[in-house]
């Protein structure tokens, strides 16, 4: 069942066309990331789903019911979608419990729900905030604030939560740990979540599905494994992960390029003679001995970036048109700058015919 269905969405601010013909859907209970560089329209998309902006065209449907478009507009307070804006936006004059309970006040005006409310207790427990009930927002750490914001969004929600770069204001260490925690909380509360981010690691590691957004249009929507392994366009490949995009020609079912012959690990291989652009991920390239069998290419290490768990080498290929390839190697025994190496590509992840 789809929780959110966006169809042909259009939005402009004056002259600026922010969203163009956006269509995608979010299955119930899943975590979908909207990944894109800044200025790609991510936040506007989220605010339109929440009802804080109204679409100029197209429709937004929640649980199969249209809430925006074709003459209908349901205001945000009737959509009951949890929304966590960038800085959390906790109400500075309310303590943790009152912040979380704010969305539960509906229809029970004579008594505001407090710490004894069952739902509040449950959320405090799920987000690990027990013991901090009476604190005011400025007495909390950055991570705690984001957890309160999430609990507040989950409290009244119809089961849908929208998160706008929830981790961007935190430092790297806290970010990684809170990332896991957020996914955990969302899974446990079986919520449908849409997460906006510009951080591809965040998108790849947290989500079930990624919508890749660029200048207001969708480049590709796919699961993280597929998006990385089978990007739909060179642009998608470039945006997610390191990529070697090489020009070549199909000959006898394989691609011939500056790395030599590269096997195409694809279902549909273009016919022989087609000019193509192929994608080889850095971990699909190996170092081989000078006398090794098979097709290989020689080059010089131009740069070596040590990351601890692996090493990224930039190798300048001999004789070619000055093409560099990036190679990922495990271990500290990788060759240093200036050393001659021989490379072999296992396979290409994708091939696109050139016009």
């Amino acid at each position: 069942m789809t929780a959110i269905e966006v169809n042909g969405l259009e939005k402009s601010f004056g002259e600026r066309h922010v969203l163009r013909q956006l269509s995608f859907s979010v299955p119930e209970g899943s975590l979908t990331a909207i990944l894109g560089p800044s200025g790609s329209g991510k936040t506007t998309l989220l605010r339109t789903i929440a009802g804080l902006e109204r679409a100029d065209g197209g429709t937004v449907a929640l649980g199969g019911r249209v809430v925006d478009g074709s003459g209908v507009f349901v205001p945000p307070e009737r959509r009951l979608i949890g929304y966590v804006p960038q800085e959390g936006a906790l109400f500075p004059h309310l303590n943790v419990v009152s912040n979380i309970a704010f969305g539960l006040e509906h229809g029970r005006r004579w008594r505001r729900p407090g710490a004894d409310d069952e739902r509040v207790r449950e959320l405090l427990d799920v987000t690990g905030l027990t013991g901090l009930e009476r604190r005011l927002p400025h007495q909390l750490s950055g991570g705690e604030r984001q957890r309160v914001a999430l609990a507040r969004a989950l409290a009244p929600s119809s089961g849908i939560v929208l998160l706008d770069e929830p981790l961007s204001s935190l430092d790297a260490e806290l970010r990684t740990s809170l990332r896991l925690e957020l996914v955990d909380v969302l899974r446990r509360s079986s919520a449908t979540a849409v997460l906006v981010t510009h951080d591809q690691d965040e998108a790849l590691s947290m989500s079930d599905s990624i919508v890749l957004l660029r200048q207001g249009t969708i480049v590709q929507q796919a699961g993280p494994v597929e998006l990385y392994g089978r990007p739909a366009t060179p642009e998608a490949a470039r945006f997610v992960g390191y990529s070697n995009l090489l020009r070549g020609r199909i000959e006898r079912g394989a691609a011939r390029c500056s790395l030599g012959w590269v096997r195409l690990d694809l279902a549909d291989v273009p016919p022989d003679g087609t000019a193509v652009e192929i994608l080889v991920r850095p971990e699909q390239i190996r170092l081989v001995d000078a006398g090794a069998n098979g097709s290989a290419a020689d080059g010089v290490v131009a740069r070596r970036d040590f990351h601890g768990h692996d090493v990224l080498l930039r190798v300048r290929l001999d004789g070619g048109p000055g093409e560099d390839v990036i190679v990922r190697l495990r271990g500290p025994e990788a060759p240093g700058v200036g050393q001659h190496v021989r490379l072999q590509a296992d396979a290409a992840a994708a091939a696109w015919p050139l016009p």
Partner: protein
Amino acid sequence: MTNAAVEMKAASLGVRRRPHVRFGRLLLVTASLIVAGAALLPLAFLLLQAVQVGWTELWSVLWRPLTATLLWNTVRLTVCVTIGAAVIGVAAAWCTERTDLPLRRLWTVLLVLPLAVPDFVLGFGWNSLAPGVYGFWGSVLVMTTGSYPLVYLPVAAALRSADPDLEDVARTLGSRRALAFARTVLQQIRPALLGGCLVVSLILLAEFGTFEILRFQTFSTEIFNEFEIGFNTPAACALSLVLVAIGLCLLVTEVVVRGPGVPRRGLGRPPRRARLGKLSPLVMIALAALVGVSIGVPLWAIVYWFVQGSSSTLPATSLAHAALATAAYCSAAAAISTFAAVPVALLVERRRTRLSMLLERSTYIVLALPGLVVALALGYFSVRYFPTLYQSSGELVFTYAVMFFPLALVVMRGSVAQAPAGLEDVARTLGHGRASIFLRITLPLLLPGLLAAFALVFLVASTELTATLLLHPTGVETLATQFWAYTSDFSYGAAAPYALTLMLVAMVPGVMLGFWFERIGGRRAAS
């Protein structure tokens, strides 16, 4: 809510063509336009008068040696007092905000307190004890010590929220501490400092009582004389138009010098404080002298004349009546201006467009006009369109509200910045309607600012003199007019109790203002 319910809501709401975000904006703009319209009534009156009198007549009034004298007096006074207030205000703010000065909270309240002393009481205090204090330098002394809190307050607030990282970075780049302070912090407090200076200079243009006591001739005193003594409306109008022109120059200068706004950032940590060490007693003496000069002197004079004066009586009834009238008029006026400032502040802070900025700026001009001119203007319109209102309490209250609206606006703008629109967005997604959000989020966040704006307008209105003299309902006197009546007869002993009561009445909002400031500063530094 069930899906069926959502669907029904959706269907019923489908009729509406636009979301009510637009409706809210329309309401805000309309309310702001009405408020700005009211604030611009005095200007409209002046232009009407000018057209009626004719430009040749106006020109002949202005083309006199007297005008040059007045202009010279007004300009040199404005320059000296504004610079003096800026230096004292910034220095005092730095001492209480960025040094380890002992008893900082007490100093903060004491430094704000001179706001509760009417400038003409301060002038009276000096001049009656030391007759040598008069003329230009006497006026500079009195007005500087009386108006520095208007610079101190915004600058101290800005110092609290200034980003200490910038200062640190400047120091690591090789600047010495003083230079680092000048380059980064001064840059950050610039909008606050300029805003404070603007208010000081505009209020100076309009001040009357102090200069009358200190026998110093400015446009404001001359306008009063032309009107009260000569009943020369054309001359009064012509001189007022010069004040408007000077006020416009000041407003434009402030915008040009301020440049683009410096983005303010929420702080992670409180700024470091400079160690005063051996300088500490010296700084304390200096601050004590400042407080003594601005509060001690008038208090001493009042007590002195009360005890010494041959005319002293304690007219308990009339004192109580005057105090009650003052409190009633001022609280009503303060409530109106504060209320009116909310939509304008929201509009300017949240939808910064050329139009909204122009609208806000235009309301400041009324600060430069003497109370008498504002009263004449509103009297003119009320006689014409609402004759029953003329010289009623309602009209006086409305006049105060128009006169001091810009002060309420200055405070509310700072307060609205503390309640960003993002919070209201979140509240809407949590199922709260417009009214509920206003009551539960916006209002509580604006409340400290509302109280502060109320206190400030109350404080300044309670010392208003010339508009009150013209418009007060028959038989009703305020503390300020009674004080004025007695000092004009040199019955200092009889005047003293009124001045004292006036200061006591003003002390309540003064202290309130000091505490409000302590609180928002504390919260801002912590969050």
